[in-house]
């Protein structure tokens, strides 16, 4: 999983507490005992991530289903 969130989408948001722009990095996501590194935007200072509606409701939902049916 990589490139699911576009630069310009992440570019709309700032970390409210740190006042910083989000930067892309590999972040571990896991479900039902399987884990993957995913390239996701997050605050370089406090680590707060950003996940878009599409990533959550389309791609993640799809993978969740695949893993649940395994």
């Amino acid at each position: 999983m990589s490139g699911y969130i576009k630069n310009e989408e992440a570019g709309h948001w700032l970390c409210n507490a740190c006042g910083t722009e989000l930067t892309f990095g590999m972040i571990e996501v896991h479900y039902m005992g399987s884990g993957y590194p995913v390239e996701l935007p997050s605050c370089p200072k406090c680590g707060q991530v950003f996940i878009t509606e599409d990533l959550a409701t389309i791609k993640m939902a799809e993978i969740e289903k695949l893993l649940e049916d395994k």
Partner: protein
Amino acid sequence: MEQNELRELEHLCIQECAPWCVSTCPIHVDVRAICRAMAQKDFVTASQLVRKTIPFPRIISKICDHPCEKTCKRGELGDAIAIRSLERAALDWASSENVRVRILPAKNKRVAIVGAGLSGLTAAIDLARKGYECLVIESADRPGGSILDYPETDLPKSEIEADFQILSDSKIALEFHKKLGKDCSITDIGNRYDAVYLGIGGRTLDAVETACFSGKKLEIDPVTFETGFKGVFAGGSIRRLDTLYSPITSISDGRRAAISIDRFLQGVSITASRDNEGPYQTRLFTSMVGVEYGDRIPAVSPHGDYSEEEAVDEAQRCLTCECMECVKVCEFLSSFEGYPKKYVRQIYNNLSIVMGQRHGNKLINSCSLCGLCKEVCPEDLHMGNVCKAAREIMVSRNKMPPSTHEFAIQDMEFSNSDKCSLIRHQPGTDSSAFVFFPGCRLSGSLPQNVQNAYRFLTQCLSNGVGLILGCCGAPAEWAGRQEDFCRVSEHILEKWHEMGSPTVIAACSSCYEIFRKSLPQNKLRSLWEIIDTYGIPDDSHKHVGITLAIHDPCSSRHEPGVHRSVRNILEKLGCDVHELGLSRNLTECCGYGGLMCFANRDLVSRVINRRIRSSPHDFVTYCAVCQDHFLSQGKNTMHLLELVFEKRGSENVLNRPVSYSSIRQGRLFLKRSLLREFWRDNLNSTQENEMIKLYLSDTIQDLMACRMILTDDVQKVIQFAEQSGRKLVNKSNGHFLAHHTLGNVTCWVEYSSFEEGFVIHNVYSHRMKVLEASGS
């Protein structure tokens, strides 16, 4: 039910059984498929089907004695399908010619066939195809036997010649002018050949028996065609000395004997699995509902054969017999494009998968367990029981997808938590003759009317009417979570015993169905029965002149007493009751049963749609979920309690279904309100996040319903974000985006501050865990 028992249920479904024409045809020509193809003008496919099964299609389509037509289902209302004429037309109007003969590699075994009639020639062809070297010995000067007796007008010699081309194509040797017992002896043949088939017809039987078997009668086994003499088989007209000649039965005999000869020569069991050879009684059921009387299409041509158009018209009269009774009435069964026999197989296979994707999970979890299938099935197959058993097996093996039922189970736990549940004797008493159990959904959807109903009960019943608020455990039962179900159910029973085992008055049909299994029969009543018996309140609003179509909840299916009471009440209220086509024991599920709506959202909206379109009238029902489901697609639906207790006309019904969040609110409200009115008890249980005020547009509320996100969840996310400061801010519009993990779900909320609360712009969630660094 164990996995193996489940498998056995597959046998009950008769959808794959042969139609009458096919089972009665001695060689099981696929008449239904032929008719189906011809009805669509596909003569090529039809002729291929004819040629595939019939070794001499031109001859048979002229002279077949067509026993199939005697049993054809179409014949119950008018004329049977003209099956033989259609087979003829298939050959006449298809462009393709004889099928190519395919022969398996030679087996180095030799079979002698005595008699070149239809049975002998069929045996020879079938055996030659399997790779046996075949010799046919015939006393006449040409092949054909009895068919040579037909006049040219009925069976032209040219047709015989065309069909017999296959003999030389199959490399079958023929010797003529040879009489068994005169020109050759059975011992001699027995010495030179590995097996013998006698298809000698009746006329020479005595002579053959005298000459070859020392006068002993040939006893022909009706299944295997063995004669009692090793390696000697017999069939054809010889088996039917005193009946009319049946060309198709002779062909069938030859074919079945060839199966035995092949098995004999291979040294395998001759008797194993020989069911349904030759004509047999099918188990199929086909409904004649909606079929109109119909005469056979006459053939205009003088020789009686159909033109192309006539054949198509006749083929279109075929009912293409099948069962599908349950599929016709169940949206779930039709949506997976099969029928129970297939589904049971798929479910069994799904349960057997050790590694890999389980594609059957959705099928198993989409059934509403409503049992309508069993009501209409001629064999009483209950797919709901199959799906439920499969769910229990999945849960016990830890293979149930966790997301499917989690929301419903959490909702059940919420109802049974201290926040909503309540167990009391009637105020001022310390014993209960009755106990009212309104159920969790009704309590959440129509709390005020539950309160009205309780007040009513305490007024008309004496010796104490206690109260239990909570969930009966149906969601756990439907989800296949036996342990959870038993826990809930045992808890209720324990409390019930502590109350002195009062008679339970259930308002919800699902609770009623659950209690039916756990309570003694004389300890269970329905609220509707009580209202019917004691009469509606004097001040009930009368709904004179209003027609309402009544929807019976699927869980009331086997409760005719409840159906009666509900109709009596409606009559007392002055309503005109319209009965839906499928009602009472044949009623349809609204799409909530079996937790269908958590497993298959698209299916539920089709289920609802199908139901609400079945009548133009407004609906009345006595299940809160059914009401919500129909309202969700714009169908005006009253709950019976509203009609009984609310002083307003049915024109003022709610037009928006209640949301999961407001159902929860309703339950909290109900407990507080009942405690205040009856027990003078003021609960103060508002939690901190309930103080957070939200502004939710209709669009956001719909989105929350569809994503199963509760108001409470949104409040928790905002509370967390505002307290911790952990949120993102949008550079252009200033919206905040925050997330928080609640149980197994991470919920995201986009919001902005407004007055003393928050406007919600978007909500979404996921179950995957994101390993978020906590900061540097």
